[in-house]
């Protein structure tokens, strides 16, 4: 799929508050060229006086359509994310550019086992990959580990639960509040979690890790310590230390 050079006009089609801090936005972008699972885009907002701001967002949708789905987490000191989470409404317009990035992607020609590991809103590109895996009826063994603060902070929880099947296993880590009856006590992800709830080195999985910098650093280091070759671990980080 080609990268379109310029900015494309998008219209907000739907905006759904799905977590206390975040929203799923569905955009209609008539000129969108389609995107691979895992890619991102730049989103540009222009104020009435001409002031502009641009941020990058991962894309939850994939494939040839002109509907582009994002999930946006509100950053407390943010300038763009509060607008997207609190203010923007269906019918409002903005601009996007992309798709961008050809590394953190999954193609349905890939047949090896895949381990997906997400922290917080880092789930977005991994949802895209999981959707592409389902849509292709791929038999490649997939496993996902999703770390969230509390159940209500999870994006796409019902959809992920529906993906579970012979070739998709889903595991959760809750860092602050676990659901009643959940076997694992709330707490940050550990080596023991990764050993117990991800594909082993013996499967030689390709591992995709996305989340806040600290989360990705921790997880990637544990994976390397467990013996996963560094070149089999793809990471995408956001935010500062």
């Amino acid at each position, binding site marked *: 799929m080609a990268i379109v050079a310029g900015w494309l006009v998008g219209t907000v089609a739907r905006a759904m508050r799905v977590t206390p801090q975040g929203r799923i936005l569905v955009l209609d972008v008539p000129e969108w060229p389609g995107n691979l699972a895992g890619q991102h885009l730049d989103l540009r907002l222009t104020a009435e006086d001409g002031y502009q*701001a641009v941020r990058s967002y991962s894309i939850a949708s994939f494939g040839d359509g002109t509907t582009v789905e994002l999930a946006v987490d509100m950053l407390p000191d943010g300038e763009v994310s509060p607008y997207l989470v609190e203010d923007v409404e269906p019918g409002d317009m903005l601009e996007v550019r992309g798709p961008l990035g050809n*590394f953190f992607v999954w193609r349905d020609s890939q047949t090896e086992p895949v381990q997906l590991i997400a922290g917080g809103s880092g789930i977005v590109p991994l949802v895209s990959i999981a959707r592409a895996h389902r849509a292709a009826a791929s038999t490649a063994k997939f496993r996902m580990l999703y770390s969230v603060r509390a159940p209500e902070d999870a994006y796409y929880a019902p959809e992920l639960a529906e993906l579970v099947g012979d070739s998709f296993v889903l595991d959760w880590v809750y860092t602050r509040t676990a659901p009643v009856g959940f076997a694992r006590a709330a707490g940050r992800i550990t080596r023991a979690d990764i050993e117990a709830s991800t594909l082993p080195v013996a499967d030689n999985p390709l591992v995709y890790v996305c989340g806040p910098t600290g989360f990705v650093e921790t997880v990637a280091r544990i994976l390397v310590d467990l013996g996963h070759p*560094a070149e089999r671990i793809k990471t995408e980080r956001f935010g500062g*230390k």
Partner: protein
Amino acid sequence: MAVFSRGFGSRRRESDPELPPGQYLTEDFPVLSAGPTPRIDTADWSFSITTESGQVTTWSWDQLMALPIEDVHTDIHCVTRWSKLGTTWRGVSLDTLFADIDTSDAYTMVESYGGYTTNVPLEDLLDGKAWIAFEFEGEPLDPEHGGPARLLVPHLYFWKSAKWVHGIRMHSDDDPGFWEQNGYNMYGDPWKEQRYW
């Protein structure tokens, strides 16, 4: 002409003429890496320049530390749109490292521990424009940010400032490195917004 986004702009940040177009100021130091952070002990670290004749010039950590060390005050600009102004680094100038290198190639491929590569024209590494940096704000450079040492070539987008730098290989042609093969611009001038293909 851009479309207007209704009601946007109430939380805007102050604009700053020192920022290249499309960048915003951050006090954080975000991390962009495609894989796990390599952990390299300075005892095992080395840096090499390899020329078209096959000649390899190598410095150990101690040999690098014995070279003239410069203080660098500079702004840095990441393609993911954050910029930091007035950062302070210490490192060895590439002018020092290239002083006795005999090459007529015009391009370089910068190579890192962990396999990362990025292409930079040689002229962008010389004349006081680039360093092998090992301190940031008075502290040893964190592994997450490329420690023990990274290339610092701050007039280009920061993906050119290869973390965990291990060597430079001379190239006759401007061949694409890692991000340059994965959607990013061959040169990366932030003032011209050379972000993507």
